[in-house]
């Protein structure tokens, strides 16, 4: 579980990518919680798509937890992340095991 609060953009994309990659290698279920994020840009969205691909290759599960920030939700929608990565609205759903 990684909680992304505040603003996330190209300035920190390498740190975010390294963190998510290490989690994908170590854990079976990885949740990126953006419910308290106030801004994300296309470079962070690209990192999330890469993370999802790595997770699938390793047979792991990668999920997003989203809140109500409109600018964050719109960015995810436009880039099509919800078509690819499982989206949950609560911590309980995000951490539930098995198929969803």
């Amino acid at each position, binding site marked *: 579980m990684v909680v992304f609060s505040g603003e996330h953009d190209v*300035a920190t994309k390498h740190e975010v990518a390294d963190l998510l990659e290490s989690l994908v290698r170590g854990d079976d279920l990885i949740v990126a919680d953006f419910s308290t994020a106030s801004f994300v840009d296309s470079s962070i969205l690209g990192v999330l798509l890469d993370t999802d691909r790595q997770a699938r290759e390793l047979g792991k599960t990668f999920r997003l937890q989203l809140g109500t920030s409109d600018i964050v939700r719109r*960015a995810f929608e436009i880039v099509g992340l919800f078509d690819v990565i499982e989206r949950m609205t609560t911590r309980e759903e995000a951490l539930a095991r098995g198929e969803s």
Partner: protein
Amino acid sequence: MVTTFDATLLRGPVDLRGMRHLLTSWLEQTDADAELLDAVLLATHEATANAMAHGQPDGPVSISASEDDVGNFTIEVTNLGAWKEPEPGHDGRGLSLMGELMFEVEIETKTRVRMLSG
């Protein structure tokens, strides 16, 4: 009423947070509703990040935004330096965000992006 926002970012560590906060403060003084404010903010960020990814270390990037008398916004992001290929891994997601968030996006290759809301 016509109001404008102008900023020039010098090259260096890519830090666009300060620009976004200034732009948000300006947008809050305009007639933009929350949805339009978000669209202008994210589209301007993407155009600026793109210009900086393509810019040379000594080439600044200028950003200007204005609201016209019917509440539409024009944003221009200009790369004032030379152009270079961005680092690997850069892709067109920023451009698709700009295209979806704005009514019109004009790209003058290697130099300028001009976007209209509406």
